[in-house]
Structures are given as structure tokens and as C-alpha cells.
């Protein structure tokens, strides 16, 4: 069979998600954000929620998420996405409402909004990209930066005595009665991408079923901030991030 015969529409098994538009994403080459954007776009469409979604964008690298996924978006102030989403969902309970936030947005400046929205059990999903660094502002220390990790503001490595401990915010959120599902995923291999997609789907289903707050943490890479190639970043993530931020469900009260 020649290649043109293979490339027929009936044989197509994978293509760009319909809700992901043609605008080129501004992310650096190899950035995990793009993969998670694809998964979010795919799940919204597969759940038939493409005309029933209010998404909330953060401040950080994903500030322009609204340019890429074709649903209604609200761009929140830094850290305030869970408060914005709280009102959007309470006033529009029939909608799928989710936030998309990075570690600085969610676990530093927005800690109060995150914890209280989750503790109220708001029927929203929080997609949490943890790459242990502030990417947008040029690679400074994040609340989730590992001990010893070099960043622009910890040039000799994060020191616990100076900078405190990396924050496992998802573990904190899993302790709250308002959360129904807290999981930690990666998107660095085909298998992990499939699992992360299933997690996002489960979270969105929880939100629509009114089961409380769902949190999908995606342990991610920031090759620009980490100053490594995308490939090396994945290796570094597996060797350093995953042992400290173990993968899997921290809490799963989702129904089948």
C-alpha cells in the first residue's frame, strides 16, 4: 500500500483537536502546556461541552490560553482564578467551569483563593501545571521549586533555611473535605498523556455531576527555565520532580 492510500480520512487516527484553533501557541518548544491544552480541548469536545464551558485563565505562561482553545474564557488576575471560577459556576451552575493555573498562580499568590474554593467544594476543576519555576517572568523560584534547584532567584540552588520548603499543595488540597478528586499526572510519554487525559475527563465529569472540587496536577517541564533541552527536561523531571511529587491519585471519591 502506498503512502497516499494510507493517508485517507477514513484511516486517520489522530489529528489536532477541533477546539484547538490554528493560532500558533506562544509556548517554548517542548513545553508541557501545549500537551495539556490539547487534552483539555479533546475532553471538552468528547464530553459534548464545547458550547457549555467557561474557562478561567491565569497569570503566568498560560495567560494566553484563551487564544488557543475555542470556548468562552475569563482572564483572571494573578492567583484569583478560583474566586473568578467560583462566581462563574455558582451563577451558571449548568456550565462546565474550570481554571487553568501554574504553580506560582495557584500555590503562591493564589493560595488563599485555591484552598477556600476547594474547601467550599466549588463544583469546578482546577488544572494545575507544576513545573517548579516561574516561566513567564524568566525562571524565578516557585513555591514548588525543589530543594537545591537553581533558578534566577536561587542562583546557588533553593536553600530551605533561606527559602523554605517546596509546597505540596495538592496534598494539602486532598485533605480538604470539599475536594472529591485530586490526582497528579505527567504528560512526558504517550502512556502518561493517555492517563492524564483520563484524569481530566474524570475531573470534568465530577464538576458536571456536582461532586465538589477536582484538582488535576500535571508535573511538567519548563525547559527554558530549567535551561535544558525538552528531552533532557523530561529526564530531569522523572529523576527529580516525580520522586518528590509522586504520581497517581491523592484522593478519588469520583463515582464510576
Amino acid at each position, binding site marked *: *500500500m502506498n*503512502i497516499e*492510500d*494510507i*493517508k*485517507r480520512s477514513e*484511516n*486517520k*487516527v*489522530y*489529528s*489536532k*483537536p477541533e477546539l*484547538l484553533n490554528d493560532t*500558533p*501557541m506562544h*509556548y*517554548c*518548544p*517542548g*513545553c*508541557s*502546556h*501545549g*500537551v495539556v491544552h*490539547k487534552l483539555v480541548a479533546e475532553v471538552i469536545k468528547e464530553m459534548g461541552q464545547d458550547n457549555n464551558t467557561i474557562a478561567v485563565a491565569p497569570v503566568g505562561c498560560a495567560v494566553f490560553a484563551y487564544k488557543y482553545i475555542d470556548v468562552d474564557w475569563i482572564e483572571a488576575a494573578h492567583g484569583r482564578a478560583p474566586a473568578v471560577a467560583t462566581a462563574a459556576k455558582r451563577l451558571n451552575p449548568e456550565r462546565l467551569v474550570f481554571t487553568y493555573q501554574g504553580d506560582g498562580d495557584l500555590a503562591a499568590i493564589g493560595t488563599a483563593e485555591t484552598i477556600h474554593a476547594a474547601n467550599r467544594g466549588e463544583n469546578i476543576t482546577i488544572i494545575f501545571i507544576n513545573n517548579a519555576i516561574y516561566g513567564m517572568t524568566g525562571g524565578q523560584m516557585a513555591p514548588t521549586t525543589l530543594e537545591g534547584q537553581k533558578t534566577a532567584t536561587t542562583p546557588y540552588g533553593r536553600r530551605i533555611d533561606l527559602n523554605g520548603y517546596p509546597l505540596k499543595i495538592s496534598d494539602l488540597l486532598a485533605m480538604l473535605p470539599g475536594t472529591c478528586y485530586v490526582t497528579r499526572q505527567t*504528560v*512526558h*510519554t*504517550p502512556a502518561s*498523556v*493517555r492517563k492524564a487525559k483520563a484524569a481530566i475527563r474524570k475531573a470534568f465529569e465530577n464538576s458536571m455531576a456536582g461532586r465538589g472540587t477536582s484538582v488535576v496536577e500535571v508535573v511538567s517541564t519548563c525547559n527554558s527555565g530549567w535551561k535544558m*533541552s*525538552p*528531552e533532557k527536561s*523530561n529526564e530531569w523531571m522523572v529523576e527529580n520532580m516525580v520522586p518528590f511529587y509522586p504520581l497517581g491519585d491523592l484522593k478519588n471519591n469520583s463515582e464510576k
Partner: protein
Amino acid sequence: MAKVIGAVDINRERCKGCNLCVVACPTDVLGLQPKEVNDRGYHFAYTVNPDNCIGCASCALVCPDACIEVYRVVEK
């Protein structure tokens, strides 16, 4: 025995040459253009060994920029 054959289409202008698809491919189909670049200056991915493709979509799954379309046929 059934044989699975596949093919990929790469959107060269969306591609940022991150190389993650090349790493993910189990059958060494893909590579980055050694010299040629796209309009934005990236050495984009292309099929070095198109005949090896089994249509597994591993490359497309890990591609952060959704540049890859995958086709698969099972020949009996």
C-alpha cells in the same frame, strides 16, 4: 498475520522542532530537518523512515503543538 502500517502528516509551520516526537517514536520514523527551517526558523520534524511507521500515534500524543496527524491501516 495482519500487518499494521501507518503514516504521519506533519504541519511544518506549526512545528517548533522540540524533538519530543523523535524521542517518542518506537520505530525511528522521525527526525528533525538538519538544515532546512520553517518560516519561524525552527528545524521542523519530518519522516526520515516513513516506511517504518506503524501508526501508533505516540509522536502525536506527546507533540505539544498538535502538529502531527496520524493514519493507520491494518492489512490482512
